[in-house]
């Protein structure tokens, strides 16, 4: 069958740089999947993305769908013909809907009876009649956070749409997309090539854009050009460019025709902390900083979008923007260092953390106590932890952090060192914000860990105590991130901490502060500690579930495995982790599936039986050898397993209990649990209860899928 290339280009006003790649990928996938879904064979799908266009070039798309075999079931024969054998209305209607008459239908015998059937061949549709719908659906499904309207139209898209190129081979697929007539005319660069640019065929698209349009359409190509160009210009300026992938992506999404050029700033600004310079150049201005042997140079590389007739103007303009920003920063740095951080502690009381949880000063007081207590338990110096917690939020009151909020913690470290605070304190001030995002580093120091955990636990517990827990996508205090951070620190740094105990300790302090804020007010009293602790525990466990299901534990975890361990509500996430790992190992054993089934069966039997009789099974009530075998085996293995469990050797303990497989299987094969004699029956239930309890020490195996 003959094939043609497909090209669709949506020409827009400037698209959001941070979502351009995601939009482009989704558009290409949407078109590719759309073709596949209607059985249009095709070759490679090539996405193009620039600030002013999203395009997809698909190679070798079939011109025609294959013919389709159709098989439709109609009414049962019993209802299709009346007593005289004449077709009923149901039969006639079915035949008509299939485009045939009743004699044209077949009869097929099925388990439920005999039915009328239509079988036929539906000729495939021409691709050109399907393409518009495929593109439309791909556009409708794009992950656009907020769609907008423009002018007086009803179309909604990321940004206003100006043209649509829609070519199937050399032929324009006619139609309207986002209220724009499709055609074969694109536009080049907004300033270098504003005139309409005709595209003769999909294969010539990228070349035409580049040669006549001053547009490098392919994202990866443009990104590579920028990387090389920026490096070249940085080398001319005497250094290496600091090339963050994130900034490269963003800059690539901001230009169609990248022209890198170097700018300079006054060397005196190099006295500023490196992070301040990088934040100014990279985050605020999208410039690439330049460094030599690990030290920044007074230079940067900007990537402009034009081949300027007078590049000095572009360079000079960009330098003009940097100068006031850096002089602001230098001014802040000087002013801030005139007052030690410690002098700012009282001012924390003037900043509200949360109306009922009090000020940042109140929070600082709580975190100091929690952090010093925790530090003492994990081998850190309690006094240093207390000091670090006391100063941790003070940089929020400095001018620099007011201007560069992203430097919170970092500036605290610089200022603490300037104030001659101990190195551990300075490091912990910076580290207590870690981890800031998924995959971010954890605090490297013990004091940093203690303050970070204490700060996050105080926030989570406090927000739950005032009933502001996150709902849906609303999480203004970042509790999800905080909870995940705490879990990562506990598990990955092996800090064996009872979460409920620590939450209770946090809550005791919070409760006192809430009571003070609420005094004389009309707020209902805060809930009891037990209620808060248990809801925070449950919340944190749900984050833990996500942590494992997303593979962060380093081994495969299913939600059933997680639930099996959660059934015991382990207090310490480190203990939770050990149990889950043991369970994962256990499931690799031959005996696992059978024992999981047995646990499930026992759980069902016990549930049906209602209340389990007290006590252990008694030997004199055993009637069957298999009961005695199982009981004896349980006695010997149970003791060993319990010893291992007590030492948290869960893997070994479960391996021990795996020895129960055979006696359990044989018990179920040969023994009828529900004996007529009530005493015997109760005794058997007790025995099964003991088997189940043995496993329950680690996890509830009945929650796992057993043998089919």
């Amino acid at each position, binding site marked *: 069958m003959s094939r043609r290339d497909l090209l669709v280009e949506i020409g827009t*006003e400037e698209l959001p740089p941070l979502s351009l790649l995601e939009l482009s990928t989704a558009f290409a996938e949407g078109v590719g999947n759309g073709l596949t879904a209607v059985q249009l064979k095709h070759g490679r799908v090539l996405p193009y993305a620039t600030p002013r266009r999203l395009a997809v070039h698909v190679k070798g798309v079939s011109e025609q769908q294959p013919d389709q075999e159709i098989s439709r079931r109609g009414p049962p024969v019993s209802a299709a013909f009346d007593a005289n054998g004449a077709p009923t209305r149901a039969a006639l209607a079915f035949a008509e809907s299939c485009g045939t008459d009743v004699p044209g239908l077949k009869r097929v015998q099925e388990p439920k009876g005999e039915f009328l059937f239509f079988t036929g061949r539906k000729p495939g549709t021409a691709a050109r009649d399907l393409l518009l719908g495929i593109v439309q659906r791909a556009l409708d499904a794009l992950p656009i956070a907020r769609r*907008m309207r*423009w002018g007086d139209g009803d179309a909604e898209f990321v940004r*206003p749409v100006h043209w649509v190129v829609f070519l199937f081979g050399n032929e324009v697929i006619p139609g309207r997309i986002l209220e724009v007539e499709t055609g074969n005319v694109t536009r080049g660069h907004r300033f270098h090539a504003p005139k309409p640019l005709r595209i003769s065929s999909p294969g010539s698209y990228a070349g035409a854009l580049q040669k006549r349009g001053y547009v490098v359409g392919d994202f990866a190509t443009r990104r590579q050009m920028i990387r090389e160009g920026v490096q070249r210009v940085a080398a001319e300026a005497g250094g290496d460019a600091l090339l963050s992938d994130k900034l490269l992506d963003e800059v690539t999404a901001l230009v169609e025709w990248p022209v890198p050029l170097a700018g300079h700033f006054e060397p005196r600004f190099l006295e500023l902390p490196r992070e301040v310079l990088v934040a100014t150049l990279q985050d605020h201005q999208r*410039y690439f900083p330049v460094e030599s042997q690990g030290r920044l140079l007074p230079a940067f590389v900007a990537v402009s*979008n034009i081949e300027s007739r007078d590049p000095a103007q572009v360079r000079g*303009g960009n330098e003009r923007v940097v100068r*006031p920003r850096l002089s602001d920063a230098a001014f802040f740095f000087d002013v801030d260092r005139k007052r030690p951080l410690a002098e700012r502690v009282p001012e924390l009381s003037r900043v509200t953390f949360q*109306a009922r949880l009090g000020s940042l000063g109140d929070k600082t007081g709580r975190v100091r106590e929690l952090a010093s207590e925790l530090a003492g338990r994990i081998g850190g110096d309690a006094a240093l932890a207390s000091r670090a917690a006391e100063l941790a939020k003070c940089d929020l009151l400095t001018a620099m952090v007011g201007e560069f909020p992203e430097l919170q913690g970092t500036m605290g470290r610089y200022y603490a060192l300037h104030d001659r605070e101990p190195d551990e304190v300075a490091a912990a001030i910076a580290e207590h914000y870690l981890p800031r995002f998924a995959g971010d580093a954890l605090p490297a120091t013990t004091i940093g860990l203690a303050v970070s955990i204490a700060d996050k636990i105080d926030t989570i517990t406090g927000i739950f105590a005032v009933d502001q827990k996150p709902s849906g996508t609303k999480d203004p205090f970042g509790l999800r991130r905080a909870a995940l951070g705490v879990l990562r620190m506990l598990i990955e740094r092996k800090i064996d901490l009872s979460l409920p105990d620590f939450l209770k300790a946090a809550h005791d302090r919070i409760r006192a502060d809430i009571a003070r804020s609420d005094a004389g007010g009309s707020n209902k009293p805060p809930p009891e500690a037990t209620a808060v602790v248990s809801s925070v525990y449950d919340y944190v466990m749900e984050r833990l579930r996500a942590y494992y299901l997303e593979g962060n534990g380093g081994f495969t975890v299913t939600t059933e495995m997680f639930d099996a361990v959660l059934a015991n509500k382990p207090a310490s996430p480190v203990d939770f982790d050990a149990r889950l790992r043991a369970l994962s190992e256990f499931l690799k054993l031959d005996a696992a599936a059978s024992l999981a089934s047995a646990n499930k069966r026992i759980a069902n039997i016990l549930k049906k039986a209602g209340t389990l009789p007290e006590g252990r099974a008694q030997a004199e009530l055993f009637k069957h050898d298999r009961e005695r075998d199982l009981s004896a085996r349980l006695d010997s293995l149970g003791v060993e397993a319990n010893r291992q469990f007590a030492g948290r050797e869960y893997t070994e303990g479960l391996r021990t209990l795996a020895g129960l497989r055979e006696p359990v299987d044989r018990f179920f094969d040969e023994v009828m649990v529900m004996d007529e004699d009530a005493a015997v029956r109760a005794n058997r239930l007790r025995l099964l209860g003991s088997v189940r309890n043995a496993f329950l020490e680690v996890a509830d195996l009945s929650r796992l899928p057993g043998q089919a």
Partner: protein
Amino acid sequence: MPKKQPATAPRTFQDLVFALQRYWSDRGCVILQPYDMPMGAGTFHTGTFLRAIGPERWSAAYVQPSRRPTDGRYGENPFRLQHYYQFQVVIKPSPPDILDLYVDSLRALGLDPLVHDIRFVEDNWESPTLGAWGLGWEVWLNGMEITQFTYFQQAGGLECRPVTGEITYGLERLAMYLQGVESIYDIVWTDGPLGRVMYGDVFHQNEAEQSKYNFEMADVAWLLQQFDAHERACRQLLEANLPLPAYEQVLGASHTFNLLDARRAISVTERQRYILRVRTLARAVAEAYYASREALGFPMAESQPAASVPA
């Protein structure tokens, strides 16, 4: 199409205003004067906020003095002011070539886009107090933000249909760039037969004194009463079906709130409540204004026949 030659750059601050007024007047905009009440931005002018509501057509351009009490620096910072000027353009419905019109306005200021690197960088706008939001860009001129560009999607909680395109030039920034000066106060305001007058001559004392008022002197207790009084008056005026006077009470409440903010008299959590109170008023006014225009039969909804305009 004849090739557009960039004009020569306006030499003075007032020439810059004249050039923009001339340009947008030639494109058919109503040239309005500033609204005579304190406000935080040109968006608060009835010529933008209220005109963005409803089906009627509208296009206007005007200078609006903008008051941002917290941005005051006692006249000591070369880049920040508590009182500065915006040049605002609104066109409704936003025409398809609105970005080209904007770029042409830069050409009219002598800024050739083949010399200067002009970029549209995503920057979405939201005004919590006005219950308004839109999508658009900040416009970069060689890396410097000179303009905010927004397609209004909602105003006063009402969907904008049709959509208003809003262009907001930062006049001081543009003037500093065009004149090549490093401080706002060094901008030449005018240079004629009666001598040269600088921006600092006109406004420096005002910055110093108003900063002191905003940060140190403004009477918090009185401002709190004023805020309540504006809120009360707004409700009464709405009951009397007078959306335009009611809107002026919103402006009063909003500016009073900004002053209280500068005095740090409002805690972070209270802040949200005050913003919500202003937004509630703004929404009620928006609805009343819509109803009042509807009662008039939306007189400007019909497409006006375009007079011939020199391009």
